[in-house]
């Protein structure tokens, strides 16, 4: 009978723990598994290894030394770049939350017909090539760009302003770039909040602001945290944006790594930087996950009543 025989049928039920004697499973599992092990896990291990290398050239993985990490963590310049990266990442995450939450919330509560167009506008930037989006911002913020043209025609300024190649411009582009992730994250979580809860809150004399504060936001917290984490990580790892929009004046870890790898050719140092970046992002993700897990079992909510 086909259903009982997992080997013959690709249509087997999911509950059979017959992994070892199931050739079909091996056929399914091995290719992706081997691929990921070979091209994800091993390179990451290699990266770690290279970061401890004694040399400072490409392909150099000999010896063991902490010199690169020492340089990164003790040199003022590199610490500054790490700090800048964290700062921009944080700012990007928080601002995109403030700006993206209303949009995500309204999308969740909107009727499907109205939602479609808006959703397309939100998702589209994610699918376009990053270089095209950033290039677009160059045209918007450039000397002869849209913003300058508008300001000049309204006589707000006499000469075209230099809007690019500073921190603010990088921040703006970073925010716009990753805003869709925040919006989608919020939308996804608010969709799961029963609208009746908002009505019940209103019936219990809470105005909209109080309802947001005490009902919607607490319940949306997992999505909010997920969005913050995602945007932070993406912003902190950015390299095209700070390079194209910030020029030499705004240095982030990502663009620094690129420089090390392509022009300075100090791959071990670049590896060390990459690893620091990786550790930062992993720590953040794990920290947020743990905080969320704790929240679900917390008794903090009942302190409201007593």
């Amino acid at each position, binding site marked *: 009978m086909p259903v009982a025989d997992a080997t013959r049928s690709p249509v087997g039920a*999911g509950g059979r*723990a017959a992994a070892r004697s199931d050739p079909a499973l091996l056929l399914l599992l091995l290719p992706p*598994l081997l691929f990921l092990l070979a091209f*994800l896990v091993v390179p990451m291990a290699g990266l770690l290894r290279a970061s401890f290398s004694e040399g400072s050239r490409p392909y150099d993985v000999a010896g063991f030394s902490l010199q690169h990490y020492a340089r990164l963590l003790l040199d003022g310049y590199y610490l500054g770049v790490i700090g800048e990266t964290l700062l921009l990442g944080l700012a990007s995450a928080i601002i995109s939350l403030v700006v993206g939450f*209303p949009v995500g919330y309204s999308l969740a509560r909107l009727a499907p017909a109205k939602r479609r167009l808006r959703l397309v506008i939100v998702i589209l930037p994610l699918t376009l090539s990053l270089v*095209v989006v950033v290039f677009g911002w160059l045209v918007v913020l450039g000397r002869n760009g849209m913003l300058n043209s508008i300001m000049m025609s309204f006589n707000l300024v006499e000469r075209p302003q230099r809007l690019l190649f500073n921190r603010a411009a990088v921040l703006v582009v970073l925010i716009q770039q990753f805003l869709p992730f925040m919006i989608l994250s919020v939308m996804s979580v608010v969709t799961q909040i029963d609208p009746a809860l908002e009505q019940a809150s209103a019936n219990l004399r809470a105005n909209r602001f109080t309802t947001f504060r005490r009902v919607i936001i607490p319940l949306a917290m997992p999505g909010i945290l997920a969005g913050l984490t995602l945007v932070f990580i993406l912003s902190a790892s950015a390299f*095209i944006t700070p390079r*194209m929009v910030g020029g030499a004046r705004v240095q982030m870890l990502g663009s620094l790594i690129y420089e090390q790898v392509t022009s300075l050719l100090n791959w071990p140092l670049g590896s060390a930087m990459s690893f620091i970046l990786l550790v930062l992002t992993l720590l953040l993700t794990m920290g947020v996950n743990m905080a969320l897990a704790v929240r679900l079992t917390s008794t903090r909510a009942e302190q409201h009543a007593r």
Partner: protein
Amino acid sequence: MRDDAVDVALKIAGSIVRPLVYTTLSLPAVIVVASSFTAGDDLRFPPEGFSPRWYMAAFKSDMFMGSLWTSTKLAFVTMVLSLTLGMAAAFAIDRRSFPGKHAFRTLTLSPLIVPMVVLGLGLLQFLAWMRLNQSFLGLLIGHVLITLPYVVRTLNAGMVLFDRTLEQAAMNLRAPPSKVFRRITLPLLAPAFVSAGVFAFVTSFGNITLSIFLGFARATTLPVQIFAYVEHNYDPVLAAVSTLVIVVTLGMIAIVEKLVGMEKVA
């Protein structure tokens, strides 16, 4: 209704923020397309005049057209490979039980959480060690790596929604397993496949960060070409080329929209 002051403030703030966000999100693409039609010599907005001359220039440029072809070829092969590996993984996750399944699932999704520059450097060093750097194969490996999570996630989502009783009904109607797979399972999973495939294509086509690291001296991809060009020049041919990218991407997304609807994707 006579709302509290704070609620009125909220409403006003919301009605300002939301259109602002939608405008800002669409702005770069719109500006790029608009300024690509300039008749003038430099990149400005609003554009001077209306002319397709920069598109002519783009189509005449071997550099850009060559990289367009490379990108398309690469994206297509990436899509096929990614779908194959991803389908295998998704089926294993959805329909089989084995020790370490959760870990495997996390592994398939993990390229998403590693910063792309880190992936780029790590892979570059590994490929260099294998003498595969600066090759189409190396680039392909990188692209498959970053598209795999999307494919697995989309296929899995489609499978979770799939009603198994339909397969049981087919078997009850005397269909052997291969026929069930061919006539029932695959067609019903087709939207998920198309959706996953399109996203793999689009992601590969537009990818820049990884492609720069795994750069391929003999032929570059279009986004990398744009990036290289903009570092030294700044003229409307970039806008025309970028518009081409937008058109290709939009076209593919429209396919997904028609077949599956945006909601399933998000």
